[in-house]
């Protein structure tokens, strides 16, 4: 009964935290020549971790390589398509990154709120008052 009390938010927190790290890397490298901005496709990773995507290939031999994506801890990181690349090869666009960062911040807090609500519900059910 208690193995999935937080639903999707448990995985969502993990992926959002990961995305935040990637975006912080982009912000940190805003002035690095040749740096390519990266991001995590949140919806794709979440649907994969929920098992909604294509069936994963079974690894039946130690030489088989397991593709990332099924495990939320190693989500696919993809390069961002810049609106306008700069001459030094850097594809970090500050406003885009800052918007994505604050969006991740809000989504993370939303997931936290849902989890906290669930905890208070269960506490109420346990205590009965």
């Amino acid at each position: 009964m208690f193995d999935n009390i937080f639903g999707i938010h448990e995985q969502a927190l993990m992926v959002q935290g990961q995305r935040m790290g990637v975006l912080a890397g982009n912000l940190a490298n805003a002035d690095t020549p040749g740096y390519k901005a990266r991001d995590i496709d949140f919806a794709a990773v979440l649907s994969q971790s929920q098992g909604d995507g294509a069936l994963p290939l079974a690894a039946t031999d130690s030489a088989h390589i397991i593709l990332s994506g099924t495990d939320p801890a190693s989500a696919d990181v993809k390069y961002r398509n810049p609106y306008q690349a700069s001459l030094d090869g850097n594809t970090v666009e500050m406003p885009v990154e800052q918007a994505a960062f604050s969006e991740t911040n809000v989504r993370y807090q939303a997931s936290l709120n849902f989890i906290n609500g669930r905890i208070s519900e269960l506490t109420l059910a346990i205590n009965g008052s």
Partner: protein
Amino acid sequence: MSLFDVFNVSGSAMNAETIRLNTTASNLANAESVNGDATKVYRARHPVFQAVMNSQMGLDDAADASSGVRVMGVVESTTPPVQTYEPNNPLADKDGYVYSSNVNSIEEMANMISANRSFATDVEAINTARDLLLKVISMGH
């Protein structure tokens, strides 16, 4: 890869931006320095940034999803120094010329503003990660 990496990544970026600010301060301070020898005059210095993967920073991140910054080195500008005829200057060479540094003050001011903005962004990222982690700690209370 977790929220904790934000501290390392943004911290390394703040360090790199500090070095950039230091070179800018040095360049602006020496903008007016002159010398009688064109090879010995102060030349503008600029740091070269490089992305450094998390595995190189000693973090246990096999995926290398995010990357910090390090200063690969500091290069001196190759712009030729400005030659002016000042025979009364005690530093002048035998022909009466002095050479002033090749620092472009406007470029340095722009550099300073850019470093300032980047530093502020990194601080903001660290603050956000800290707030979120504090909320995670107090989860369920």
